[in-house]
C-alpha cells in the first residue's frame, strides 16, 4: 500500500490532461525526455492526451512519426540505450501487436541478454479498452501479454491522480515501461496535484476499505467495483476494493494482506477471462492465503471472443458493476438478485 494519495483539496483534472501535464513537466525538467508517435504533434494525439506539447517543445522533442509501430518502438529502444529517455505512443493497444518484436524481444530483454550492461529507460503509452463500438481491432485489453514478458513493467492507471503519478514514475524508471490508458476513462475527473509527483511502481492502492470481501479490479473496472461496493453496502456487505495500479511488478503483499482479513476474493478485469491477469492474481491469492479463504477465488472478465462491434453485444462483453455485485454475492453465498 502507498502513502502517496491525492489530497482531497487538490485541483481537479481530467485523466487525459494528466497525461500532457505529466509529460510537459517531465520534459521541462529533463532534456533527455522526448515524445514520438503517430499524430502526437500538432494534432495533440487522437485522444487529446498530448495537446500542447508540440507548441511548447517543438518538433525536436515532439515527433510525428510515420505509421510504423515497429520502428516507433525501435526508435525508442535505440534512443534509450543511447542515453535518452524516450516516451513513445502506440495509439491503440491493438497496434502493440504490430510492434511486439521490439517490445518483447528487444526492449524487454536487452539488459539481461547483454549481461546487465544496457539500460532501456523507455516508456510506451497506449490506449486500451472497449466501449466505443470500435470493434475487434481497436478495443482490446492485452495487458496479460505484456505482463508475461520478463523485463517489462506494466501500469494501468484508474484515476487521473495515478495517471500522472504512474506516468512520472515510468518515465523516470530505468526499465522499459508500458502505461496503459483506458479510453473510457479519458474524460474522468479527479484530484491531481499540480506539482510533479510519483506514484511508486509496484504499489497497490486500497480504493475502498471493507471487511467482507476483497475485490481486485484492474483499470476501468475499479470504478465499476466501487459502484458495486456501494450497492452491496446497502445489502450489508462491506467490500474492500484494491486497485493494483501496477500489474508488473505486482503488489501481492497488499492483495494477500487484504484477503487474509476478508477471507474472500474476487478479481475483475476487462480483458478476456481465460489467461487474463486475473488468473495470475487468483493463483497468487490461493498460494499465499489458502488457509484464510472461505470460498474459491472468483474471477470476472470478458467472454472468450473478440470484442464485438454492435453496442448490443459490446455491452454484454464488458464487465460492469452489476456483474461484479453478482459475483460478490456468489462468493459470499448470498441469494442472487434477479434484475
Amino acid at each position, binding site marked *: 500500500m502507498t502513502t502517496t494519495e491525492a489530497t482531497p483539496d487538490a485541483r481537479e483534472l481530467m485523466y487525459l490532461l494528466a497525461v500532457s501535464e505529466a509529460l510537459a513537466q517531465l520534459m521541462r525538467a529533463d532534456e533527455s525526455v522526448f515524445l514520438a508517435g*503517430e*499524430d502526437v*504533434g*500538432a*494534432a495533440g494525439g*487522437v485522444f487529446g492526451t498530448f495537446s500542447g506539447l508540440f507548441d511548447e517543445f517543438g518538433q525536436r522533442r515532439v515527433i*510525428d*512519426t*510515420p*505509421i*510504423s*509501430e*515497429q*520502428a516507433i518502438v525501435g526508435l525508442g529502444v535505440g534512443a534509450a540505450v543511447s542515453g535518452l529517455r524516450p516516451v513513445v505512443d502506440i495509439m491503440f493497444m*491493438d*497496434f502493440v501487436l*504490430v510492434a511486439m518484436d521490439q517490445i518483447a524481444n528487444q526492449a524487454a530483454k536487452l539488459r539481461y541478454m547483454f549481461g546487465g550492461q544496457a539500460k532501456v529507460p523507455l516508456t510506451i503509452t497506449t490506449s486500451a479498452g472497449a466501449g*466505443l*463500438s*470500435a*470493434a*475487434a*481491432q*481497436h478495443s482490446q485489453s492485452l495487458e496479460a501479454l505484456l505482463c508475461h514478458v520478463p523485463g517489462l513493467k506494466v501500469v494501468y492507471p484508474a484515476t487521473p491522480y495515478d495517471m500522472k503519478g504512474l506516468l512520472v514514475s515510468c518515465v523516470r524508471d530505468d526499465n522499459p515501461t508500458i502505461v496503459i490508458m483506458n479510453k473510457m476513462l479519458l474524460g474522468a475527473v479527479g484530484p491531481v496535484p499540480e506539482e510533479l509527483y510519483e506514484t511508486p511502481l509496484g504499489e497497490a492502492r486500497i480504493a475502498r476499505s471493507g471487511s467482507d470481501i476483497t475485490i481486485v479490479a484492474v483499470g476501468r473496472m475499479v470504478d465499476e467495483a466501487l459502484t458495486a461496493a456501494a450497492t452491496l453496502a446497502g445489502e450489508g456487505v462491506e467490500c474492500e476494493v484494491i486497485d493494483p495500479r501496477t500489474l508488473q511488478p505486482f503488489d501481492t503483499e497488499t492483495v494477500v494482506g487484504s484477503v487474509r482479513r476478508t477471507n474472500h476474493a474476487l478479481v475483475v478485469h476487462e480483458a478476456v477471462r481465460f489467461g487474463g491477469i486475473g488468473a495470475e492474481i487468483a493463483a497468487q491469492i490461493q498460494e499465499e492465503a489458502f488457509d484464510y479463504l472461505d470460498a474459491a477465488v472468483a474471477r470476472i472478465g470478458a*467472454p*472468450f*471472443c*473478440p470484442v*464485438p*462491434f*454492435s*453496442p*448490443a*453485444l459490446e455491452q*454484454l*462483453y464488458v464487465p460492469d458493476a452489476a456483474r461484479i455485485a453478482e459475483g460478490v454475492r456468489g462468493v459470499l453465498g448470498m441469494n442472487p438478485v434477479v434484475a
Partner: protein
Amino acid sequence: MTTFDGIDLHRRMVRIRVFEETAGRLSESARLPGFLHLYVGEEAVASGVCAALNDDDQITSTHRGHGHLVAKGGDFKRMMAELMGKATGYCHGKGGSMHINDLDLGMLGANGIVGAGVPIAVGAAFANKYEDNGRVAVAFFGDGSTNIGAFHEAANMAGALRLPVLFVCENNEYGEYTRRCDTMAITDIIERAPGYGMRGVIVDGMDVVAVHEAATGALEGVRSGNGPALLECKTYRYFDHMGVKGVGVSYRSDTELEEWKQRDPIRSFEARLAESGELSADAARAVWDEAQAEVDGAIEFAEQSPLPEPEALLVGVYNETGAPS
C-alpha cells in the same frame, strides 16, 4: 487505349458517393455507432479499378473500406445494417464499418490495422497462382500505409514470387492529421516500386477513366504472369479522417480542399459524358435518385432489422464444423 463503359463507371461512383454521404449524415445524428472513415472524394479509384476486375477477382481493403465494397457490388442493405450493428448486416453486427466484407464478391475485408490488408492480398494472389485459376488480387491501401512493415514485406514477397497482385495506393496526401511529406522522404509512392522489382504507374485518381485504363493495363501484365505492379492514384478525401466535417480543420486548408473539389471525379465525369452524349443531365440525375432511393430503402431495412441476440456473442470464434468442404 482501352474501352470503358462510362455508364457503369459513373454508376459505381455515384453509388459510393450517395452511400457515404448518407452514412455521414446518419453518423452526425448519432444513428451509427463506432468509427466511420468515409471515402467521399476518392470514388474514382475504387470504381475505376473494380470495373477492370472480373467478379471472382479479389480485393483487400482498409479502414476506409465502404467504397471498395460498393464498387465490387456490395449490397446496401447488408452494409447499412452492419454499420448499425444489426444481425442482418454483412458481419451480423460483429465487425461494423472497419471490418465490412463480402467474401462471395471477393471482397476480403476492410481492415482496422493499417497496411494489414496488403499481405492478405498477396496471400490471395498466391492461392490463385497455386490453383492456376486465372484470378488476380488487388490490395487497396493509403499513402500512410506504405510506411508500415507489412506493406514492404508483402510487396517484396509478391515480387520475389511473381504473384498476380495489383497494389493500388490511394494517395490522399494525409494519414489522419499528418501530412504525407512529413512521414516519408520520397516525392511519389511509386518510387517504392522498383525496390521490389515492380513497375509503378502514377495516375490521376480524380479521373475515373484514367484510373480504369491504368488498372486495365497493369492487370494485363499481372494476369499474364509478369508479377505485381503498383498503381499510385493521386486523390483526396473531402471529409475528415473520421466522420464528416473536413472543412475548417487545422491540419489542412479549406483552399486546398476547394481546389481538389474543383476536380470532383463525379462532376467532371458527368460533364464529359454529357459532352459525348452518353449520359444526359436528366439521365445522370436519375442515377443519383436511384442510388438515394436504394440507400433510403437500406436504412429502413437496417432500422427494422433486429439487434444480434445475446447468444451471438460467442458464435463464430471458431469454425465449429471443421469439416473439409
